[in-house]
């Protein structure tokens, strides 16, 4: 990296990094700092990260406790509820963490400032990925501890399996987040609802609370195209049969890589379209 000192008005000078073509971790850090400043300045934003996952966990936890009292098949089915809802939250909150950080730029009418800065799309996307993990951690770590205290469910005890589940779910959430960010660039806040609701199509399709075998065959084909399906099937295998299905995780990972690549292409296509249609300057409709 080279630098140049530029004299300006008064006694000020600006020493500027001159390595325009490289990926810059400093710019990624700048964007993460920007979102971190925002998050720590607003307790409702932090509260919102914890509140709903906690409510969900308690609701499904009590349901699991209730169903468990019947023994037999209902108890076996029910013993995956807390795990399912927590993994679902990783998927959903991971995408929301990505998309909400992006939306903050639109709410504050700051997008044009970023788009004329040296910030490159891969740096922007990397910062959003990091923020999705930070936001997810703020919400999920306390919830996972509460699940141990109240229901004796220790997500962390899943060990390496949890790492595999987490990796695959967060990759899917990022793929969807990148795609939605592209939609927002092109269509402005008119596409905002997609950020909040698009993931819900995954809820029935990826079989969060029931096995894929209950789906009609034609829907099962679609379900197996989605990486979270492999994760939730893998979770059930682990919790009910105590078997870690590495084959399912590998297949999910392969599909995830494909989805991420497709999402990046879609994002870049939407960015080009936004430049053609002039929506980067408007951004609000």
């Amino acid at each position, binding site marked *: 990296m080279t630098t140049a000192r*530029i*004299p300006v008005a008064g006694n000020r*000078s600006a*020493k500027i990094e001159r390595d325009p073509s490289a990926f810059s971790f400093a710019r990624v850090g700048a964007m993460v700092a920007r979102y971190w*400043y925002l998050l720590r300045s607003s307790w409702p934003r932090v509260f919102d990260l914890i509140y709903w996952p906690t409510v969900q966990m308690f609701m499904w936890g009590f349901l699991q406790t209730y169903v468990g009292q019947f023994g037999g098949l209902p108890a076996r089915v029910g013993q995956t509820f807390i795990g399912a809802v927590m993994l679902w939250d990783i998927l959903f909150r991971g995408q929301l963490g990505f998309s909400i950080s992006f939306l903050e730029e639109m709410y504050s*009418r700051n997008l044009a400032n970023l788009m004329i*800065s*040296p910030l490159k799309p891969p740096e922007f996307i990397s910062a959003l990925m990091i923020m999705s993990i930070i936001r997810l951690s703020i919400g999920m770590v306390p919830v996972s501890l509460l699940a141990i205290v109240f229901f004796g469910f220790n997500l962390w005890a899943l060990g390496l399996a949890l790492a595999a589940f987490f990796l695959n779910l967060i990759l899917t959430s990022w793929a969807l987040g990148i795609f939605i960010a592209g939609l927002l660039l092109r269509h402005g806040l008119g596409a905002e609802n997609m950020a909040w609701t698009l993931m819900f199509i995954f809820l029935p399709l990826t079989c969060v609370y029931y096995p894929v075998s209950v789906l009609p065959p034609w829907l099962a084909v679609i379900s197996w195209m989605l990486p979270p399906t492999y994760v939730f099937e893998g979770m059930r295998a682990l919790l009910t049969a105590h078997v870690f299905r590495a084959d399912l995780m590998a297949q999910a990972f392969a599909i995830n890589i494909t989805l991420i690549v497709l999402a990046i292409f879609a994002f870049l296509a939407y960015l080009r379209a936004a430049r053609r249609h002039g929506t980067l300057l408007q951004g609000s409709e």
Partner: protein
Amino acid sequence: MLAPEPALAVSNLVKHYPGGIAVDGISFAIEPGSIIGLLGGNGAGKTTTIAMIMGLVAPTSGTVRILGHDMPRERYHILHRMNFESPYVEMPHRLTVRQNLTVFARLYGVVDREACIAALAEELDLTELLDRPTGKLSAGQKTRVSLAKALINAPEVLLLDEPTASLDPDTADWVRTHLEHYTAERRATMLLASHNMNEVERLCDRVIMMKRGVIVDDDTPARLLARYGRNNLEEVFLDVARGRGEAVREAVR
């Protein structure tokens, strides 16, 4: 000896939207160190032109060259050498002024950030405001913060879209004075879109007048006044905006 390359050169720039033509084949070049005013009524194509220069809007055809590089093809070779300010583009409200400036200093790769922000704050009378949330500031204070952001990388090319819109006369004059000093001392090139004729007359070496996406006149303020036989640019603007330009110029001839 070859003439120095313009700081900014626009050639046959066209922008078509589905609803019509925003910019229709404009060309101009700006010498390094000059201040050029882009004048025109609402819908004349000024903002679209500036947006195409910055790479925010893709031209339908035509080229933009900035500091010897093609925009948008070589955008990352020049974006750190230029900047933009507009009251219509804001900065995150909840972040303090210092946080906002720090983020942009890091984005532009300013190495000595703290010193740079302190010096800018002193120049723009922002020192007392550095730790206040940007959204809590008055319009004039926000404009000074936006200006600080636009100057954070000491840009060689500065694009301004109505920089003093909605400011009181005192603050507007203060901003203009600072811009004058900056361009004079830094020898920066400035393109200024404005509806404020006094501002354009005071700051600009040259004025490009646009109407319905085309350039209808391009000259120094003094020569424009002489050509239209008017006392100020506001009267020239009205002649052009109301379609009297050609007739007035003929009468003066």
